[in-house]
């Protein structure tokens, strides 16, 4: 059975189509394994080699990876929720209630999106504290620290814009209070509030604007910055590894 499977896979690898996609032989040496990483769009910003120490739990608690996985969960569940949601004034609240009580597995997806969002804010903050306290912001990682801070802000903006979309009392007052905080900014505050809300009150324009920010603009910014963030980890020489990461031995 195993040999049949093996020979079947080998047969696929020998086809012209497979070879046109992957352009390399089997990953049986360090060279071909490196080529496999270099030649793949989704792997090329990851390091070809990592130190074993940096893979230990203590080195990072995998907080960055956890944040990224939560981001992917939010991306997938968010796209699914969009199939049932209209960002318009009477519909938004009803669609949210439909998702909870009418749509099959809707409540599961909505709660998954909501919980993953809460967890992502938590994970990103924890990631930042962990990097800060172990000095991961020091040269040569300064630029990546700044990218990370911007990603934290993007995460918070994503949370905030998503908070309006259920269009309930909590959402309405949170955005009323939040945008009044913006208008306290000197000189440009009121202008920014007007642009953000598309008017003077939290109404339909505001809902649509927050929706577009939430589902298009901010995720795009997040995706680009996450790409840079991962790539710079590799270019800056990998994770900050300390001697005590060896299973607690100093």
């Amino acid at each position, binding site marked *: 059975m195993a040999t049949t499977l093996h020979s079947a896979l080998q047969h696929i690898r020998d086809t012209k189509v497979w070879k046109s996609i992957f352009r390399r032989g089997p990953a049986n040496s360090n060279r071909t394994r490196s080529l496999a990483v270099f030649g793949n769009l989704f792997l090329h910003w990851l390091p070809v080699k990592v130190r074993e120490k940096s893979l230990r739990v203590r080195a990072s608690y995998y907080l960055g990876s956890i944040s990224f996985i939560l981001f992917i969960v939010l991306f997938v569940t968010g796209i699914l929720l969009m199939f049932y949601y209209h960002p318009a004034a009477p519909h938004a609240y009803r669609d949210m209630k439909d998702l909870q009580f009418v749509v099959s597995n809707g409540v599961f997806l909505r709660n998954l999106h909501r919980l993953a969002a809460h967890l992502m804010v938590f994970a990103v903050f924890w990631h930042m504290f962990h990097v800060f306290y172990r000095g991961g912001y020091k040269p040569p990682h300064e630029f990546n620290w700044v990218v990370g801070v911007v990603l934290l802000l993007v995460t918070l903006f994503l949370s905030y814009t998503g908070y309006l979309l259920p269009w309930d009392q909590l959402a309405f*007052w949170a955005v009323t209070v939040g945008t009044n*905080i913006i208008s306290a900014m000197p000189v440009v505050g009121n202008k920014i509030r*007007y642009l953000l809300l*598309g008017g003077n009150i939290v109404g339909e*324009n505001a809902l649509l604007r927050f929706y577009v920010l939430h589902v298009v603009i901010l995720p795009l910014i997040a995706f680009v910055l996450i790409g840079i963030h991962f790539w710079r980890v590799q270019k800056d020489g990998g994770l900050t590894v300390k001697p005590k990461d060896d299973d607690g031995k100093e």
Partner: protein
Amino acid sequence: MSDEGHSSVPEASHPVQAGNEITRRDFLNEITLGALGIAGLGSVAVTYQFLSPNVLFEPSTTFRAGNPDLYPVHSVTFLQDQQVYIVRVPEGFYAVSAVCTHLGCVTQWKPDADMIACPCHGSKFKADGTKIEGPAPRPLPHFAISLTADGELLVDKLQNINFSQVLKV
């Protein structure tokens, strides 16, 4: 390739003269960058205009508050749809905003305590809008109030008036 085209390439070997001579390449680069810059600024301006709505489908800021006889003397009446208090004192009428000056929550009139209280962050005001305590930076503003030709109260929420102004009826 002509000689002029050649001479502009190695800039280091081309001694900078006192007259700040610029090559054709520098000139074209600057013209291009300038044009792109102007176009970029223009796009920002156009986008800013596009994103600022010219017509708003928002509730009117001017409203009629009914006949003055509806409001007894020494009363504070909360008009929920308009988020305004109509206050009647012996001297006359004034209209106080019900929107807290702190962060925009809607306040409530507490007749037992004889004050206006905000549920969000605990600001408290007297019936005339002056602050008693809390984080609110300003008193609740008074809106312009007048009588229509047919004798109804008319409130304009875009126009703030002095605290001493009272509509005598």
